[in-house]
């Protein structure tokens, strides 16, 4: 085995091996567990089964029931148990089975996980990672497709991370586990089967830093700010927009808290226009924060208002209608088109009686 491995090392640049995002996360968990005996994984069905998305596949078998185990079926219990385990010196990485099934733990997350360091003046910190498969696009039924990131991002004391690439899913999770503070790690379900190489990050000595957005594509006319499952939509829209002659820059935020104001604002200062793309219902979501911030900080660079393309303000719809709810390339292109390239205010969707303006 060792010899074989060495032989591989010697071979000059083999084609990069592709792994799925769920595989990359599995690998990150394993590597973190190997690096630090205090890292433990638990939750519902994460042991023998390997999780409903197989993200923890084989970990219980390979690391033993002490390091990766099933708990009773109670999310507040799981999070509260993690708080206690962290107080005893562990670094728990816990799984909430689906987005909406983290809600029973909301009190534990908002009132304890987020606040323990602050409450104890730094004497008790909670290095807990709460993994939440989130968002839709996989034909899931109700309660299995919520985009819940804004609830956490709005809660001071939580870091909120959402990878958009396979590489980032590995790198950001390693960083999350190393982080001394609680991290809500939101995994876009529909990307679990997406493929990429993690070889360069495996070799890296440092993981992706929190609070550093990535410019996924450079452009000069308009900036698309996106995160998690929406980055792919933004990139596709950018490609399509190119055909219409627009040069589109795509910023992937990677971490919502901390937020990389700098990269985002620098991009908009350059392009002068901005559309935020998020899958979550738009009202009072993270996209609102981004829009508010961009206009606060780059006001004089803006040629048009910052627009948002978001999920509709409705409960997640049944599978046969989800495509109408989810931001897609068309909707992003339409927003780009509305960026007042001709300097007119868009009133098309305003209620007819308000088109006149004032009340």
């Amino acid at each position, binding site marked *: 085995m060792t010899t074989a491995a060495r032989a591989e090392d010697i071979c000059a640049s083999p084609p990069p091996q592709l792994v799925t995002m769920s595989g990359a996360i599995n690998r990150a968990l394993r590597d973190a567990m190997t690096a630090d005996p205090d890292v433990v994984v638990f939750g519902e069905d994460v*042991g*023998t089964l390997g999780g409903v998305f197989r993200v923890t596949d084989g970990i219980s078998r390979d690391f033993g029931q002490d390091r990766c185990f099933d708990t009773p*079926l109670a999310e507040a*219990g799981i999070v509260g148990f993690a708080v206690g385990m962290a107080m005893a010196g562990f670094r728990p990485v816990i799984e909430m089975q689906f987005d*909406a099934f983290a809600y029973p733990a909301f009190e534990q997350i908002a009132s304890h996980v987020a606040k323990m360091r602050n409450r104890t003046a730094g004497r008790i910190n909670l290095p807990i990672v709460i993994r939440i498969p989130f968002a839709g696009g996989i034909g899931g039924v109700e*309660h299995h497709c919520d985009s819940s990131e804004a609830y956490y991002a709005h809660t001071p004391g939580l870091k909120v991370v959402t990878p958009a690439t396979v590489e980032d899913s590995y790198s950001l999770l390693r960083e999350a586990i190393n982080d001394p503070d609680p991290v809500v790690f939101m995994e876009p379900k529909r990307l679990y089967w997406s493929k990429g190489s993690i070889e360069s990050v495996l070799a890296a000595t440092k993981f992706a830093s929190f609070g550093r957005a990535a410019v996924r594509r450079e452009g000069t006319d308009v900036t698309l700010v996106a995160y998690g499952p929406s980055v792919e939509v933004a990139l596709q829209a950018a490609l399509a927009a190119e055909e219409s002659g627009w040069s589109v820059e795509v910023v992937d935020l990677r971490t919502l808290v901390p937020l990389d104001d700098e990269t985002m604002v620098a991009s908009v200062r350059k392009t002068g226009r901005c559309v935020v793309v998020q899958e979550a219902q738009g009202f009072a979501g993270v996209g609102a924060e981004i829009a508010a911030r961009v206009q606060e900080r780059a006001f004089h660079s803006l040629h048009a208002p910052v627009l948002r393309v978001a999920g509709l*303000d409705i409960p997640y719809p049944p599978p046969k209608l989800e495509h109408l709810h989810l931001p897609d390339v068309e909707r992003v292109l339409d927003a780009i088109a509305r960026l007042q390239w001709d300097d007119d205010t868009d009133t098309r969707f305003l209620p007819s009686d308000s088109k006149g303006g004032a009340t």
Partner: protein
Amino acid sequence: MPTPLEAASLTTDTSTALAQTASTDRSFARGLMPASMPVQFLDDLGHRVQVFNDDYPEPSSQQLVAAYRAMVIGRRFDIQATALAKQGRLAVYPPSRGQEACQIGSMLALSPDDWAFPTYRDSMALVTRGLDPVEILAVPHGTAHCGYDPRASRTAPQCTPLATQLVHAVGFASGEKRKGRPTVAMAFVGDGGTSEGDFHEALNFAAVFKAPVVFLVQNNKYAISVPISRQSVAPSLGYKGIGYGIASEQVDGNDAMAVLAVLNKAVAHARSGQGPVLVEAHTYRLDAHTNADDATRYRDSAEVEDWLRRDPIPRLEAWLRHKGLIDDAFVALVAHQGEAFAADVRERMAINLAVDPMSLFDNVFATPTPQLLEQRAMLEAELEAEEASR
């Protein structure tokens, strides 16, 4: 059956010292405790076991024959739905094969005016209640969050967030009682669901408000992959009732006669104003959690084989044949009815129902907000543009 809860009410107006506990000797506690072994009427082969609990009258022949028929049709439906899921006609289906005695018994014990508060797994129960199977399958079909009319069918939407609808059942039953209506609510939960905080809160609210609710725990031994031994180390889930002052029982959940006997009495108990009842039914999920699940990852086939020998259907069939209540002709007839039922489901599920896109906005609120009207206008414009470009 446990004695009525008079003792519990004794404790409600004590105010001093240890008076509250003065009434709490073991004999009272025993009044709330389940039998030490699950109530059973028929053994695995369908032989009548020695009656050891006179408290439960044997269900009527009529009810037993109806149960047999409903179990056969229920199972046929379940198998059909599983097949549709395998074919991709349904996104997902959580089967309940093996749990027929619980699924059917729970519904036959109710009056038409009673309400059921089922989970995602209780589809056979809903078929037994008379709901349209195609409406039941609307959720896994992806066309609706709840395909049937809960008010018309007196059946709450099949609930996904575990144990959460138990509290609804309690509030509902308590509300019905406050309105002077004799409604009973049958609330379903799995072994895994009993671990959730909502289970606890529901039981306590029910006890304190003496709500006419029957909590039926279908202990099918697994919560997805997690076996009951990792879910609880209590002597039995039925032993949870005493902690709330709730009369409790445990029953062989693959013995339809026993399930009916216990639930008939539990429903009567609740209806008579004596408060809630907790029943744990010991049963088994023969199939995987859903078609998306791979049960071989966490259990071996020997275990499943073992439970196949306790199949509730042949068990009741043997007894009914022995008593001369059914014969070959009847069995064949029911099998035929099952096939017809399945064929109807197959046929009607083959049609792709159109779902109105604008329905997305219809029921967020009674009247859409201005924000929703704008989004509606946007979608309408998009769809028109799409239509135009075709």
